[in-house]
């Protein structure tokens, strides 16, 4: 059964169309990276999935309508919207008390065990914690909930590299068990590349790319070539080109590696490279050599 099933999902604010008829299917046990520039519609899509905003079109999350059944849905869904949403006046112990009081699937002992590994004290108020510690606290709350879907909207924004690394490591090692589904949006694409199972690019309210990471790795190839082989390489129709220390880096869609290997160094592109190729520049998607 699909965890999230959206058909023709549309959301219009006064002047702007935030989501323009989007189809999304996310299976259970997947880790989906939702990548897009600012204002692309990522947060709107997540808000719709979480029942925080009304929308047009069909949307089912874990078999429920998120807009009409948000409170029921939240028994199975957790989300960390961004680091700054835990109430600043709250004490750590109060946060545990409250979540334990309202959430049927919260395991307090688990949250306490996780917090014991950090420098967070039970008596501290959220406002006294550093940004990284607030994220750890939120993660402790979320990981102690036996949920089926975890939504992370820029969870590591403004954190230093140690906390970011720790965040994703904890998530993978202690939380993800191949039955849970995780959706993550982030600008720090390179940090999530190796944890994702699926990738989705969104731009101007539309899905630009939707594939699994295996497909991504099989389909896209990057070639670093010298100027003398450039013309040969271009014959294969790169979707993006950029200069690098006098050599040229070309990105190909669906070109076999054995054709490219003689022309230079061949490797799997980073998500960031593909993102720039497909979304960076004005309508660069699918127009070979448009960006140089």
């Amino acid at each position, binding site marked *: 059964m699909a965890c999230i099933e959206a058909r023709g999902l549309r959301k219009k604010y006064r002047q702007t169309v935030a989501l323009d008829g989007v189809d999304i299917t996310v299976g259970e046990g997947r880790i989906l990276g939702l990548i897009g520039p600012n204002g692309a519609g990522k947060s709107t899509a997540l*808000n719709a999935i*979480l*029942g*925080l*905003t*009304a929308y047009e079109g069909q949307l089912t999350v874990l078999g429920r309508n998120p807009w009409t059944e*948000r*409170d*029921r*849905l*939240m*028994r199975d*869904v*957790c*989300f*960390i*919207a*961004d680091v*700054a*949403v*835990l*109430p*600043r*006046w*709250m*004490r750590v112990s*109060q946060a545990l*008390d*409250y*979540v*334990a*009081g*309202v*959430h*049927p*699937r*919260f395991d307090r002992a688990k949250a306490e065990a996780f917090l014991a590994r950090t420098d967070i004290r039970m008596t501290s108020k959220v406002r006294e914690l550093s940004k990284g510690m607030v994220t750890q606290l939120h993660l402790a709350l979320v990981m102690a909930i*036996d949920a089926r879907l975890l939504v992370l909207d820029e969870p590591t924004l403004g954190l230093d590299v140690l906390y970011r690394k720790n965040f994703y490591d904890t998530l993978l090692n202690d939380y993800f068990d191949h039955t849970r589904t995780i959706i993550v949006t982030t600008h720090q694409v390179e940090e999530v590349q190796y944890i994702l199972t699926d990738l989705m690019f969104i731009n101007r309210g539309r899905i630009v790319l939707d594939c699994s990471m295996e497909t991504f790795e099989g389909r896209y190839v990057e070639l670093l070539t010298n100027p003398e082989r450039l013309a040969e390489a271009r014959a294969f129709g790169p979707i993006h080109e950029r200069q690098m220390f006098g050599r040229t880096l070309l990105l190909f869609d669906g070109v076999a590696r054995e054709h490219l290997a003689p022309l230079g160094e061949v490797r799997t592109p980073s998500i960031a490279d593909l993102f720039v190729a497909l979304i960076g520049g004005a309508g660069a998607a699918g127009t070979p050599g448009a960006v140089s």
Partner: protein
Amino acid sequence: MTLAEPVPDAVPETQAAPAALARPVRPFLWSVRRELWENRSIYVAPLIAAGVFLFGCLVSARRVGPWLRHMESSAQARAAAAYAPPFFGDLVILGTALVVAVFYCLGALHNERRDRSILFWKSLPVSDLTAVAAKAAIPLAVLPVVSLVIALITHLIVFGIDTAVLSTAGLTPQAAMQLPVLDQLGMLIYGVFTLTLWHAPAYAWFLLVGVWARRAPFLWAFGLPIAATIFENVAFGTSVVGRFFWQRLTGGLDQAFNTTHGGPGTITMPQIDLIGFFGNPGLWIGLVVAAALLAGCVWLRRYRDPV
């Protein structure tokens, strides 16, 4: 036998329920508790008001003691020292609770949007209805009970001070025992209950403005009624609207008690006007309006996009 038959059917259902829910939860109770964590003024402010009042009583007792010794009539002394101060104390405590309630309502649904913590609250399985109900319960149930309890304790302490003062003044403590304590208690409960019902639409209005206004809910909450009053006054030369709002804010006691007879400054048991209060269509219209405004709060909390 036929009566017993449905029972076996019901058993698997009740057994299945705990299996589906890992732990029992009480979203409403915990939502109210969290309001008390966030807004400690709900009980701190009435306590401070009571403290200030009691401190004043203590200081005045030192002053009144010698004065009482020269008083001829112990009845006069009782009235002066024992009866009037608790009533004034009630007004101080209830008035403080009223101010706390207004500010609480304005901020309750506003601040969570401002600091974006609404995203955290909404990430938990608590419906908007439960959240708004918990917030409405603060001015409609928690604050009245809190202020009532504090007022009653204040009464007891004042009673103790009075007894001490009377006995040191050479008057028999039995005189103090004849004070109408039960009357005071009954009237206090009745007064708080009726005032709360009377103010319910005002609280609901403040809650609604809090969730609706993007900024400065205080200005909107008071500005709109004042603007309507001024407009009516200038445009039509009448002041129906102004009087309506004023009566709603300050007229609670006049509705609950028959104030046309009885001494100034005190209210006594016979002045309780149950029929007048509950027979007043204004009360019921107000309660219907309050319910509608609260429904609006639920709707707005749900529909307003986060942040």
